[in-house]
């Protein structure tokens, strides 16, 4: 601003200085944008107080997401650890979802990452491993088999790169499920869908009643992606995306893929999604608000939204108005209706450039606090199924027993549990994917164009 204000004075005598000023303005442009991107995603220090990463401090650092109620559980575990270990402290910092994904990459590139790197495993973890940014935890797990044995074996898949384990699986299993508002269904007098055909029949009925059939936070893009994940699975089976993941040429042009892409555009064209979905972000939980306020009848979303709907939705969850089911089958599709997609867990890696003391602190945290009995209880209390073995019995006695047993059933009965695409793929391919998905939902590209654009980045 100072620069701009001084330029106003130039108007008196423009010939002497303005060219240089223009030069500096013009040059400051991209550089300034880049600097801004590096500097300020607005971290919020919590718990320990000290913010920021870096290997310089003696304290171990830990960054994670700020959405409640999950944030409270993460912070509570850090607080318990810090209370029990006055000499080896952990400083925690929280971020919003999309801000975090960018921030952590920038921090790794700048050598300023936290000791404990919270993530989703899969393709992103693979880029960290290839750059030598995270430690191989296989020897540590071999030395401490008890830690490995108390977690779901299936959760290690997304933590394993080329046969080695690079992350501690943590938190809860989070399949994507179809939520619906029972009050709205009663009001319109219809039944929950049992097939894709039912969904397409429900759409005009809800629209006629002035209720949006589906809520969707489309600006976040990965929210739209969940629809494709299920349609690809139900139409073509898990092999369909498996071919993309295995980098087979032209895998997106498979007729089943085009069929799934066409189906989702049919739903958009039939006004299946709430008006304005492409400007709603999931980070603000506005998509959930649409469901529990009855403005939308259904919502395809991760199980992590159950906790926040219970927290924000008044008596929506406690009063039994929230319905849920696995995504229904598509007529004539190859996919098993028990299949699901989502996050098989969260993943905690250790930054390779952290000091030995910080790494020790992190490992002690993994061993003593990650999915400790206290934490497991908190996950269950907020309606999540932690990936710790032996928590099944605790699920039944919880106030959310029906929900938890449903999630547990979906996760454990699934013939195939697909990892979220944007996490399974490399960041480069994931960005192209998300970009094209938003255009697909905007109806600005056809399924064929989508397939062609995506075929171009297969294996990248």
């Amino acid at each position, binding site marked *: 601003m100072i620069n701009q204000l001084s330029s106003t004075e130039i*108007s008196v005598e423009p010939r002497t200085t303005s060219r240089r000023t223009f030069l500096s303005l013009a*040059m400051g442009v*991209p550089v300034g944008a880049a600097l801004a991107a590096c500097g300020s995603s607005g971290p919020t220090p919590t718990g320990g107080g000290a913010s920021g990463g870096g290997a310089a401090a003696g304290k171990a650092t830990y960054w994670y997401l700020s959405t409640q109620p999950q944030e409270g559980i993460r912070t509570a575990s850090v607080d318990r650890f810090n209370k029990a270990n006055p000499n080896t402290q952990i400083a925690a910092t929280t971020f919003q979802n999309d801000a975090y994904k960018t921030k952590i990459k920038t921090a790794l590139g700048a050598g300023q990452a936290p000791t404990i790197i919270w993530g989703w495993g899969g393709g992103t973890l693979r*880029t960290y491993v290839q750059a030598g940014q995270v430690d191989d935890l296989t020897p540590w797990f071999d030395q401490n088999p008890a830690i490995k044995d108390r977690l779901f074996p299936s959760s290690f898949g997304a933590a394993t790169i080329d046969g080695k384990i690079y992350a501690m699986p943590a938190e809860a299993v989070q399949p994507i499920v179809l939520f619906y508002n029972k009050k709205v269904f009663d009001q319109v007098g219809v039944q929950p869908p049992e097939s894709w055909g039912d969904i397409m029949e429900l759409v005009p009925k809800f629209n006629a009643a002035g209720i949006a059939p589906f809520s969707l936070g489309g600006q976040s893009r990965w929210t739209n992606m969940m629809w494709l994940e299920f349609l690809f699975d139900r139409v073509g089976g898990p092999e369909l995306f498996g071919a993309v993941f295995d980098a087979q040429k032209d895998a997106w042009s498979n007729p089943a893929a085009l069929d799934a892409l066409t189906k989702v555009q049919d739903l958009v064209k039939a006004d299946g999604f709430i*008006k*304005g979905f492409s400007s*709603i972000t999931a980070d603000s939980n506005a998509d959930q608000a649409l469901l529990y306020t009855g403005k939308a009848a259904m919502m395809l979303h991760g199980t992590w939204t159950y906790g926040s709907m219970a927290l924000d939705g008044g008596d929506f969850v406690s009063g039994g108005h929230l319905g849920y089911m696995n995504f229904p089958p598509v007529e004539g599709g190859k996919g098993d209706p028990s299949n699901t997609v989502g996050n098989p867990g969260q993943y905690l890696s250790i930054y390779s450039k952290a000091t030995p003391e910080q790494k020790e602190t992190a490992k002690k945290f993994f061993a003593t606090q990650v999915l400790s009995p206290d934490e497991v209880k908190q996950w269950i209390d907020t309606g999540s199924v932690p990936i710790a073995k032996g928590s099944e019995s605790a699920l039944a006695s919880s106030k959310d027993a029906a929900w938890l047993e449903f999630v547990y059933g979906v996760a454990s009965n699934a013939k195939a549990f697909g990892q979220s695409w944007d996490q399974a793929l490399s*960041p480069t391919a994931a960005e192209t994917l998300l*970009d094209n998905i938003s255009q697909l939902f905007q109806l*600005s590209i056809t399924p064929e164009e989508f397939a062609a654009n995506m075929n171009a980045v297969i294996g990248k």
Partner: protein
Amino acid sequence: MSVTPATTRGRHGSLAWLAVPALVFFVGFAVIPLVGVLALSFTSWDGIGDISVSGFTSWHAVLTDPGLPHALWVTFLVMALSWAVQTPASLLLGVFLAGRQRYRAVLAVLYFVPLLLSSAAIAITYKALLDPNFGLGAGLGIELLAQDWLGEAHLAFGIVIFVVSWQFIPFHSLIYQAGVRQIPRSMYEAAELDGAGRVRRFFSITLPQLKYTIITSSTLMVVGSLTFFDLIFVLTEGGPGDATRVLALDMYKRGFQANLMGPASAIAVILVLVGLALALLLRRLGGRDPSSSQMEGA
């Protein structure tokens, strides 16, 4: 900065050292990063691992991407439309606020409030107000306001122009206000004696006298609009689809979301070149005739 009239130099010795602080900042924060960006554009780097030299592959990828002409077009449209909206509005506001009346001073304070707000705060607020389901339209029950403002390509584009203008018109009004106050009263008095009306005085005195102010303000608008990032990023994230994806946003998305620092740097270089070209072009438009003074009695 570096132009020192010969007479001063002769009498008091060189005053070039006065430029040192500015020069240090300019080199540190503009020249060095620019060279770095130029170098990065010939490499491939995912932002996390090692940097490897890759020749022109990044440039080739960027220049053959159909997204580039689109982003350039969107950037140009934002630039042209926001200039076309802001210039007349801030010119008129500036002239109005240049008056010394008490009520105008009060209004000026109100008009300048958007200057105090950060782009992110403005974007978040507008996003909430324009939400089709929970925003102003739905809250007040006004059907007309309950449009899908940010979800429909043309509307979203219009909203971006509107919010950008809302944010920056006060700043440019301030420039024009200062410019108008520098115009000598005597010129108006003479015009009045000659029987010129308000409108005539505006077009024959105010507007020509503000020529350089208009050029300065336009340059700031045009070059500044190349870098609109924060506001659009928070408001629409370039969406819906790619309707509001300007060049700066495209650069960010490639660099920091798709981990393609090479192509992102190439776009940054393109941004610099476009910005330079525009700034120089605008300077040319300002006229090169040294005898055309804007001061009294010219």
